[in-house]
């Protein structure tokens, strides 16, 4: 019950979207970026899917919608083809800045995504390190938030939930650690990896360990809500709908 197009959005907004926070917060990623000689603005243009440009500099990564400002571009003939980039590292067709693109893709980009994978799909041993555990969990939260936005706008079931969500900012977060904001406007979702000042609804996990358990499916969301470990407030109907989309995220990115 998954759709390739929706998976493509989950990958683009969830997985690759997390590059922004990876480059901002992870020392290994910062080291990788420090080797960039010139800024690279890499556009992934998926036919029948999203088109986004990832702007890499020594300072970090920013994402803009569309191809504007890109100096390298890779086209994908379909969402399926883009999903192969994420799952099997199979590139699309370079159409702009080919030489720069291939060297960046095989070098810096590949190292960054490898680091992203280390954090998003950690081995048990690595998680024994408390700092790594926290970093991995927080990055997973950003990935999930991005995927919620991606799926809300593309997956046929998640779009039903989005269609029932009223406008406003939804704050998702791990208490005193990290926050992401889902902004809903006319049933369209977008994500910001920061704390909104005017949330209309809030879902806050009490600590990193709980968040990790929830993201990994080891603990029940409802049980933890009942125990009071997940603080909810505001327009709860928005959170009801986000929870339903979160179920879809698990299906796509498990």
């Amino acid at each position, binding site marked *: 019950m998954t759709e390739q197009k929706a998976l493509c959005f989950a990958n683009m907004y969830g997985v690759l979207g997390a590059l922004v926070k990876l480059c901002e917060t992870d020392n290994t990623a910062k080291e990788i970026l420090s080797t960039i000689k010139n800024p690279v603005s890499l556009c992934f243009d998926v036919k029948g899917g999203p088109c986004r440009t990832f702007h890499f500099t020594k300072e970090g990564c920013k994402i803009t919608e569309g191809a504007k400002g890109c100096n390298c571009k890779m086209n994908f003939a379909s969402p399926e083809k883009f999903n192969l980039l994420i799952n099997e590292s199979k590139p699309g067709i370079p159409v702009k800045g080919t030489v720069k693109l291939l060297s960046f893709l095989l070098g810096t980009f590949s190292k960054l995504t490898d680091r992203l994978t280390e954090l998003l799909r950690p081995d048990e041993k690595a998680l024994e390190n408390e700092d790594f555990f926290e970093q991995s969990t927080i990055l997973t939260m950003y990935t999930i938030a991005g995927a919620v936005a991606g799926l809300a706008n593309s997956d*046929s*079931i*998640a779009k*039903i*939930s989005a269609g*029932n969500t009223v406008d*406003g900012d939804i704050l998702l977060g791990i208490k005193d650690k990290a926050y992401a904001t889902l902004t809903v406007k006319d049933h369209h979702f977008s994500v910001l990896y920061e704390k909104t000042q005017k*949330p*209309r*609804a809030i879902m806050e996990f009490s600590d990193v360990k709980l968040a990790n358990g929830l993201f990994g499916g080891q603990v*029940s969301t*409802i*049980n933890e*809500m*009942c*125990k*009071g470990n997940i*603080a*909810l*407030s*505001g*327009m*709860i*109907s928005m959170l009801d*709908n986000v929870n*339903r*989309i979160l*179920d*879809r995220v698990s299906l796509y990115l498990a």
Partner: protein
Amino acid sequence: MSKFPEYKHEKSRQWFDRALDVIPSGIYGHLGPSEGLFLPLDKWPLISSKAQGTYFWDMDGNKYLDFMCAYGPNVLGYNDPDVDAAALEQLKSGNCTTAPSYKMVECAELLCDTVETADWAYFMKNGTDATTFAVMCARAYTGKKKVIFFKGYYHGNDPWAMKADYPGILPEDVANNIIVPWFDMEALEKAYIETKGNIAAIIAQPYDNGNFYDNQTASHEEWQRVRDFCDKYGIVLIMDDVRAGFRLDIKGSDHYYGIKADIICFCKALANGYNMSAACGREFLKTAASSLSFTGSYWMSAVPFAACIATINKMKKLDTPTLFKATGEKLTNGLKAAAKEHGFDLVVSGEPALFYLRIANDDSLMLHQEWVANCVSRGLFITSHHNHFINAAVTDDDIRLAIDIAEDAFSVVAKNHPEIN
């Protein structure tokens, strides 16, 4: 200093923890902390020890003036002596028997005498059973597939009544549902044309009493247009009166709004807490109703029938709809005045017997949730997301107490939010 000190819930919490060990979510569904929106959890009672009249007590002995009425079933007061006496008397002579008790016949006769549209009655246990029966009956009669719902609908928990994005629900489960805005005649006509007339039923509550937004009552004219539409195209009109039934009109909420539904579904207020539901219908649907394979182990148990008979007779005697309207208005006027005193704009909507509350000072409901939590933790049980229910045991003293606690809670929230004033 708050006039009403906040309750503690240590023993209730211990019981709830025990529940969590052996029951998914501890308390699942609308009576539990998740769907019941106990925000924050520590302000709410979780498990009760006893109830009487319009009050219940939690495991710590805290007493709650209850305007949720178990989400509707408590219509005459918990442990109403007349209803309980009838039920206990019946229990002595039989309950769940191979040949159903004559009480079932008496109960059906009483419903047919009471409910304006009822030529027959069919019994089951929950509201969902009744709405599911009604939809099956409409399909059996018309031979058609699609069912029209009004936006924001709730007709129970069976898969057909839910939405495709709910866990465990397949798109196929809801593939024959058409959702249109309330009373939008153009949308109804469009749905009829687009489905080439393949519409078995329209199912709706008497008015839009959804959660998280101000409830919108209906008019006779709006319902008459829907009635005419159904008559024009041979569509079965189902009134889901599970929530509002007998609180607006003893003859049914369709009667209250000036029409006759083809099938009307009852549950909550039907037997003052004894477990039964019923669907009542018009003569032309009786053969279709007979044709259905739809039954359950306890559906013809006699004790609830005895309770139902006593409940309906007492509701008639008390003229509960008139009483509930007056009580609801008295209570909500007092709450609004108390809110105003502290700078809050408390919006009251829906029918007074099923009033819905919302503090409109912010658009997130956070102030409202804070006020509701402070009411609950001081002994006034209300909710932040759902309509409320009046019962016949509420006295003027209870109303005064409710307003006092609400006023106290407003003062606490106002102190927490000096920006309000």
